[in-house]
């Protein structure tokens, strides 16, 4: 039977090429543009991490140490990377992760991410510490939204945020649990860069985050039993089990992009032990240097339900605001589908650890952009405009 070439669905990049070329065709072009647009201070804040930045590098190293075991002859002519996430259909298993101070990359801040979230149909988790705030961000888009809180007040203060999040259509509520102390981001400190949103934080406010305990979780589940709760910053199976014991609906594996405790494990290295206790019992989130479609596929194969993207989102907003962020998501989706097809799966449900080989050779020194080796930030010469 002859295949009719004209009926073959064009891939994303083929469509874009036929249309004369989209502004960004690869993710590293987005990074390049962001680098050209951002001040040194904002750039360092976005790409930097804590102290030696070892946790950040381990995030990349852990992803890079996984190899695919591609299967063949599977008929992958139709690939679906959509999924059901916390009861809703979304276009791909990617979350626009919360970014504090996101207005440093796009003046509209969280509202731009919310708009991209609506346009593309992936969820957005809004950080409590960014412009334009809970209400205005909710008003900006009709999207799948989640609110993430840094605790800066007493229980009444927290409950007030929960009430407001409920009222403004945030489908679930997330407590940050990996930020009991503000870490030492040495890129910022060395350059004496004072972040505006940090300057607002009083000593007393920060102390509330330090005092967080499981009692706060108990209170939330008692007062808001039907409002799904996510704990962001889980890094061990032990704490994942405790979260389950407390009735938590979402377990978010994260080391804050390497921006909180230094010398932690890479996020995807933590995923298997957490999935072993929590898979099917809670929704499993993971983030930490996921910069590629293939990175996302690896996390899903190891048991994650959704993958958060933070830095890449910030870079895309800096490069092209809402349009830049949508374009980034399109490229990631294209990469996910390509990866799925090449390893022989048509839907995310088919992915499991049989498609992965652990402890593969790592071919590049891990760093913020080792997933984008063609990026050359030294070369001032290229970067398409949107």
């Amino acid at each position, binding site marked *: 039977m002859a295949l009719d070439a004209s009926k073959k669905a064009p891939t994303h990049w083929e469509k874009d090429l036929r249309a004369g070329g989209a502004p960004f065709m690869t993710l590293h072009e987005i990074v390049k543009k962001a680098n050209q647009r951002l001040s040194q201070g904002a750039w360092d804040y976005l790409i930097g991490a804590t102290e030696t930045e*070892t946790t950040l590098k381990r995030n990349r190293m852990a992803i890079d140490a996984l190899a695919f075991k591609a299967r063949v002859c599977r008929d992958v002519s139709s690939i679906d990377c959509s999924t059901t996430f916390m009861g809703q259909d979304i276009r791909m298993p990617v979350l626009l992760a919360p970014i504090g101070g996101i207005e440093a990359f796009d003046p509209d801040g969280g509202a731009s991410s919310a708009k991209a979230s609506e346009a593309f149909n992936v969820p957005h988790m809004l950080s409590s510490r960014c412009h334009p705030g809970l209400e205005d961000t909710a008003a900006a888009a009709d999207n799948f939204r989640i609110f993430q809180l840094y605790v800066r007040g007493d229980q009444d203060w927290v409950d007030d945020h929960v009430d407001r999040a409920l009222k403004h259509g945030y489908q679930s509520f997330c407590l940050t649990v*990996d930020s009991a102390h503000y870490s030492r981001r040495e890129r910022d400190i060395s350059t004496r860069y004072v972040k505006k949103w940090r300057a607002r934080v009083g000593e007393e406010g920060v102390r509330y985050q330090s005092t967080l305990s499981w009692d706060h979780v108990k209170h939330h589940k008692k007062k808001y039993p039907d409002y799904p709760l996510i704990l962001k910053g889980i890094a061990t199976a032990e*704490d994942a089990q405790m979260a389950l014991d407390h009735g938590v609906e979402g377990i978010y594996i994260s080391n804050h992009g390497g921006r909180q*405790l230094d010398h*932690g*494990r890479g996020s995807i290295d933590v995923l298997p032990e957490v999935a072993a206790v929590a898979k099917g019992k809670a929704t499993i989130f993971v983030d930490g240097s996921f910069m590629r479609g293939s990175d996302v596929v690896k996390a899903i194969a190891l048991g994650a339900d959704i993958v958060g993207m933070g830095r890449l989102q910030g870079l895309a907003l800096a490069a092209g605001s809402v349009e830049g962020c949508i374009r980034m998501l399109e490229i990631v989706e294209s990469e996910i589908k390509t990866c799925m097809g090449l390893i022989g799966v048509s839907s995310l449900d088919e992915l499991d650890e049989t498609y992965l080989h652990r402890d593969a050779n790592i071919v590049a020194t891990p760093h913020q952009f080792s997933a984008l080796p063609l990026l050359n930030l030294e070369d001032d010469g290229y970067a398409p405009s949107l």
Partner: protein
Amino acid sequence: MADVDPTAEYLTLHEFVKKARLKLSPFVWDYLYGGSETETTLKRNRMALDSIAFRPRVLRDVADVDTSRTAIGKKHRLPVILAPMGGLQHFDPDGGAAVARSAETFGVPFMCGGNTQPGLANIAKAANGELYYQLYVMGDHDWIEERVKLAMDVGCTAFALTVDSNLGSRRERDISKRYTKPWHTTNHYDHRPHITWKTVDFIKSKCNVPLILKGIQSAEDAVLGVEHGADVIYISNHGGRQPDHTRGSMEILPEVVEAVGNKAKVWIDGGFARGTDIMKAIGLGAEMVGVGRLQGYALAAAGEAGVVRMLEILQQELVIDMGLLGVNNLDQIDESYIHMNAPVVNQPHQLSAFPLLNLEDEGY
């Protein structure tokens, strides 16, 4: 913890290194920075630290983190000893006297090296902080007895015998430049190769303060040390400056802790440069951590005040690191927080704990 005060001169530890590099002559810099032969031991010190990862716990209420630790009967602000360094006087003219004052001001012990100027008696007079003495054997039993007596007379609360320096190592950075360390010309090496466990027994019999054996690198010697009366087993490879191609200090710690049990305390040094480094040693059973090179950089950069400031930043790091690990005090850190054999992300070297440091850039 309070945000960093942007008006302070030193806000990160690597800024001391930069300033020290700009101030020191290449000869003194290389003495401070270098190790022996291939510098493999030195690099393994860092590599061993860098191959450990943490398993942080959450929701623990860590608003009040306490970094203090009691050692040799006294409470210190950090589980840190200002480790002995022979050539402190080349980083600051006041040498050991300056560091003794820093130690008192901040509240950690200073272990005075046997070759450190202006000499133990003057250093003891310079400050009232916690002072230990570290001996290089450069004479017969009468000479040793005299040193032990002096240490006790001037108020040292612990006495350390160095056991890893029976021969002078080949520090090829110095040799290549034909650099003769001034304090070495007055040294007497004749007696060092003859140190045995009998020397330990002799010192133990003359010494009425706790005895530390500095330079232990195996469980076997740790056990022998305990049998010969050591109160502290100090794991050290001399910062990678004595035998080359040995193990990183942190690789040795678990076997020594297991072998010694509760019969002695275990201290350690070798490449420690960060709050996270200290947490790793504590988690694997060390009581105290020695800081040598970092002390040298801070002293060279900013003298006595520089060493105090270095300790302040180290404490700031440790408070935050402990809070983020989910503990309120050092006693809570155990093996459950430690993941061994984690990937090493940087090529290990003297300054791999400071990846943002750029010594090539003369400008800042």
